[in-house]
């Protein structure tokens, strides 16, 4: 018995400043689902209003009145172990706050579509490290989703871009300047695959920095006009007010050459005209940095043999600022395409989710047809490569699926799309150099294609050794050995060895970095080849009871 409809997997762009959700409709087209306020993007702002949690535009507007009850830009703190938002005696970690944003998106989308949302693909900046990705996944789980995959924002954008025209192969530079992060990624888009070649960026550089510069400028002007010398940003109300005014001003200046702004503080009011020229002057260095990151990335790509690219596409809301395209064109002699800056990422994620769903359904159909059991999470193209599935079985299943669902056959066949990613950071373990100093020994260097696994042998020191401790580190460098202080500790793994091992027995430790950029560690003792239990612990990502508590809290909570 074959079901007519396939399970929907939604794509979510969880942004620093705005988030959105998309799905692929019955015509195979990616569509953004508007929120309850009928907006296509929802501000990633959470307002704790006594017992209720409000997310979106209302929360953002509330920041002016209740600055201490509102959390914005939480994405910048993902994976930061010591960020705590306190409200009403409760402590919230970034994952949980992000979960509320996700919940709001899903709730409104459910309302709009009249169907339950369970499976999602969530995007994150390519530049996110292992912990930040893990934290993003945890946020999805706290919100109650089955998180099918975490994919990179530029990859998602490239998928959306690639889906427009599938005939042409090209190398694309995705310049993604979002609300809080900047990624620049070189992607090889082909008919059957989307392959990331190289990535770089800064997850503390985004539209917000442009806003902050306007805020700083306004403060200066206010002081100049009123003669007040105190830092008016010490007042949370003023800070929030200026932050919102700055964002508005930035948006207007992207359309018009000047905009009036008014600053009110302590009963004094200053009105001034902010000109685009001034705006560009006070933010020029930020733009220069994005260009510099782009050049660095190109250099790294060159080392991998990619010396040219065909197009530059600009995604992320901040690329709407005219100076971005102007500067890019001037620097790289190529007119960039501003591609659906606010929606491309969510749409790409939705397409990716849709392909996952098609993939699942095809496997189910083939399994039913051939009476064979397959790994339900397997990838159909890989199965064909390894001859687990014949081309004929696949084609038949694809045709049936297209008939049942009404999707066009070619798009169904596209479910075979392969996505190849690279890791944005180098990853290694703490070891000792010959002079006895602690160093980081990198096992996987940045911009290596994932999935990747590295096997490393370690030897037991004493007889009947109980455990081995491994400290895993992440860094931004491309060298094998680096000083400890240039890396960040991400996880500590403890291997619980089976009893009665002799001394000097090799333990094979496998570090798996999956295509999502998540790290798995497995180990095997080579005496009797027993699997060794590995316990991974990190304080940077919510876990254990705290995670369960957050999940519980989120379940009982209606987001407005």
């Amino acid at each position: 018995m074959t079901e007519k409809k396939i399970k929907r997997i939604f794509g979510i762009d969880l942004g620093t400043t705005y988030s959105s959700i998309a799905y692929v409709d019955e015509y195979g087209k990616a569509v953004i689902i508007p929120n309850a306020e009928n907006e296509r993007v929802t501000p990633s702002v959470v307002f704790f209003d006594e017992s209720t949690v409000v997310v979106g535009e209302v929360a953002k507007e509330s920041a002016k009145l209740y600055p201490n009850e509102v959390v914005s830009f939480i994405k910048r703190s993902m994976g930061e172990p010591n960020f705590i938002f306190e409200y009403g005696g409760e402590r919230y970690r970034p994952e949980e706050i992000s979960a509320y944003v996700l919940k709001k998106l899903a709730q409104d989308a459910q309302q709009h579509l009249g169907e339950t949302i369970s499976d999602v693909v969530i995007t994150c900046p390519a530049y996110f490290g292992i912990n930040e990705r893990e934290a993003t996944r945890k946020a999805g789980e706290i919100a109650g989703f089955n998180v099918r995959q975490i994919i990179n924002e530029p990859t998602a954008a490239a998928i959306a871009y690639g889906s427009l025209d599938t005939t042409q192969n090209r190398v694309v530079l995705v310049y993604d300047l979002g609300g809080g992060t900047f990624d620049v990624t070189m992607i090889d888009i082909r008919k059957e695959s989307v392959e990331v070649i190289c990535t770089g960026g800064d997850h503390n550089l985004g539209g917000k920095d442009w806003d902050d510069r306007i805020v700083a400028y306004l403060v200066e002007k206010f002081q100049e006009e009123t003669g007040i010398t105190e830092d008016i940003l010490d007042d949370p109300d003023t800070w929030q007010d200026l932050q919102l005014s700055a964002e508005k001003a930035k948006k207007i200046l992207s359309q018009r050459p000047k905009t009036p702004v008014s600053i009110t503080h302590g009963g004094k009011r200053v009105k001034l005209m902010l000109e685009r020229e001034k705006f560009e002057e006070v933010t020029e260095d930020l733009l220069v940095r994005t260009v510099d990151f782009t050049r660095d990335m190109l250099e790294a790509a060159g080392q991998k043999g990619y010396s040219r690219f065909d197009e530059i596409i600009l995604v992320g809301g901040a690329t709407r600022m005219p100076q971005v395209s102007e500067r890019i064109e001037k620097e790289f002699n190529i007119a960039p395409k501003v591609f659906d800056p606010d929606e491309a990422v969510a749409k790409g994620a939705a397409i990716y989710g849709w392909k996952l769903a098609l993939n699942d359904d095809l496997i189910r159909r083939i399994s039913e047809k051939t009476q064979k059991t397959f790994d339900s999470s397997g990838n159909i193209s890989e199965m064909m490569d390894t001859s687990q599935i014949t081309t004929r079985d696949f084609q038949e299943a694809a045709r049936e699926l297209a008939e049942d669902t009404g999707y066009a056959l070619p798009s169904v066949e596209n479910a075979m799309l392969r996505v190849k990613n690279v890791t944005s950071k180098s990853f290694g373990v703490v070891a000792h150099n010959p002079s006895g100093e602690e160093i980081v020994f990198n096992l996987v260097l940045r911009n290596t294609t994932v999935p990747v696994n590295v096997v490393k042998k370690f030897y037991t020191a004493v007889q009947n050794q109980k455990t081995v401790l491994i400290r895993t580190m992440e860094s931004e460098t491309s060298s094998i050995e680096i000083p400890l202080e240039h890396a960040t500790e991400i996880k500590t793994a403890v291997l619980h060895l089976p009893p009665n091992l002799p001394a000097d027995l090799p333990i094979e430790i496998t570090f798996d970095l999956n295509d999502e950029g998540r790290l798995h560690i497995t180990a095997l003792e080579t005496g009797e080849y027993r699997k060794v239990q590995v316990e991974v612990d990190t304080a940077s990502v919510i876990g254990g009871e705290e995670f369960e508590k957050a999940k519980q809290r989120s379940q009982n909570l209606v987001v407005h």
Partner: protein
Amino acid sequence: MERENFYLLLELPCDPPETDARVIEDAIAKKQSEWSRLRNHPTKGLHAQKCINLIPEIRRVMTDAALRSKEAEAAREISARDKQDKYPEIDRHIDILMGKGHITPEEVHKLSKVHGLDQGEIQGRIAARKNQKYNRVDQQITLRMAKGFLTESEVEQIAKRNSVKVDEVRKRVRCPIKKNGGDKDISPPRQLDRSLEKTIRDNLKLLNKSSLYDFLDLPESADLQTLQKAASQKKKQVARASKKDAVASASNTLAGHCMTLFKSDETRNAYDVSLARAKLAELDSDIDIAGINGKIRPEYYDILVQKGIEFGMEKHEAEQYIRDYCRRKKWSIEMAPKKRRRMLMIAGAAVAAVAVLITAGMVVYNIQQDRGRQAEFDRLISRVEDKSGPSEKIDLLEKFLQAHAGDENYTRFTDAVRKRIDRLAGRAAQLRYDETINKIQPLEQQDKYEQAIERLDRYLQSDPPKKLADKARKKIADLENQIERKYFQALEDLMLSGSAKEKMQAIDRYLEKYPNGAHRGAVRDMEADMSGEYYIYVKTALERCESDQDWKACADLCRDYLARYDNSYADQLKDRLAEYREKIKQTRMLAALKKKARQHDTDYDKAIDVYKDFLEAYPDSPLAEKAKSEISRLREMKKNRQAQSTRQRFRSLLAQSSDRFTEKTRGVVTDSRTGLMWQLLDSAMAGEGQCLSYEEAGAYVKNSETGGYTDWRLPTAEELAAIYKEPPYFPVMEEKWYWTADSYSSYSDGWRRIVDTIDNQPGSDWRVERRDSKQCGAVRAVRKP
């Protein structure tokens, strides 16, 4: 780069330092929340992020007593240093020594010693002072650059003022030089936006850098190409070799600014101008203070001008600068009024003091009327005669004397009055004596000699005439003899019936009372007769005092006998006295030791030291045993007291906490949640050594028999965390960390043995701390019932 001091960062008092773990943890939690809120602040965000990342380190340092105390010390130092920057003084000293043209190595050494700085630093300052001529030139250039250009005459002036060549000055100027009056077409330079200036300044502050040049480690005279290259390198270096923390973000931002600003002469000039402006900021802040009321008072204005001159401005430049600044702020400057000729008001007008001295001649008429005086005397005498008692009569006569004391005209009469008084007084005294004698007669008859003597004593106190006093004294002596006789008779009676002690006491009392008594000889004989009897008494008494160890009483008995007799008994007692003396000496020493020990009250260690010192000094003393037993007694007391107070405190904590933990068996706490049994006291509290290595910890639990159980073991990290990290918490008396059963060997550390430890700070925000097994910690043993 030096990290911020945690005491200062957490705004905790450092002198005396806050050490309460709860207060500190609260401060951290408060700051964590505050920094988290400021994490995305437009201008304070980076600093907040930097602080958030420091939290684990802050917690590590502030929960470790030793590190924390170091931190407090550092905080005090920083505060002190901030308060009093000593560099000006050093520079002054250098200037003095440089007066002769150079500074010798010995002088450098001396300077470094005097100021507590290393010689390298002193050398650095000397170099700076040597360069100061050019520094001054640069400073003066920079100040004038604030307007965007220098004039030719300014350049000449600077050259002249610092005795350097004009070309030298010109070389150092990094902006256009305008011909005096001409070159009107040189437009003011593009100025760096103030908000940008602030962004740069904030980021530099975060990195402890003074300027973008400093950030790139290049001199201000570096050329554009070098600066560009360094900026780009800096950015790559940050990207390559650093974590994405606040410092990296700030470096990235600054590198971005460098790349933008050091692109052209124009943009660089704009930055240089802004640097110059920053240097003037100090003056600005002074002006701000002076203009706090919206106007600048004349005396302030003068000070500000002076300040500007100190900055290297010319007087007119300083005045111009201040005027411009005030104009921008819309403040008025009150100019000093023209100095008014001060009129000297000499108010010392001659005051003609007319002193009229009226000499009043006094005419004294001395009319003697002797007749009147005689009449007055006669009246007195007749009134005296009228009075009955002598004392009343004397009263009247005395009043006359008082009224006419010193009046020569009355001498005749007063003399007569005095004679009459004397007569009257003699009569009164005899009267009083007779009265007294009459009163004691019946007392004598009743053998109440003492009362009679008492009365006579009282009479003598009334200061009677000598003759009468002597009579009274004689009467007293008679009476005393009567008493002595009576006493002797009683003594004689006692000699027949009393105990040796009573007899001897009575003899002593007699001899004491009547050293010259009539029966003295007889009493002495009585005493001599008692030598045997008294010896027997003394011997029995000695037995008693010996058993009481009252050596002083024993010695006194011996001494007493020896004082009375010199016989064979006395010889025996002499030997015993020597023994008692020795015993007394020792007792005194012990008492002194005890007193000394007692002064330490409950500081048993010091008390024990008192005895230890004694034993060391007198190892063979007969008191050695006593001292030793005293030591062990004190040790026992110490242990008891410690354990008791610990147990008490702990039990009261236990009682305050919820009913999760209860002490069912003595010394054993049961966790109602897990059923696990915990030792009430941990290894440190139980007093079994302050801290234990991991190996010792193993032995400790193995040998533990608290509550009669012998299966105590080390808890797992999970078990320990369950009582300290999940409310209701196990009571905590002082912060420490505990060994757990979870141990590892880590490959990265050359298979060093690492053990999971858990601290006892309550709270859900916890992690396992891994420590080397050689470290020294505490054990809280557990068992499963």
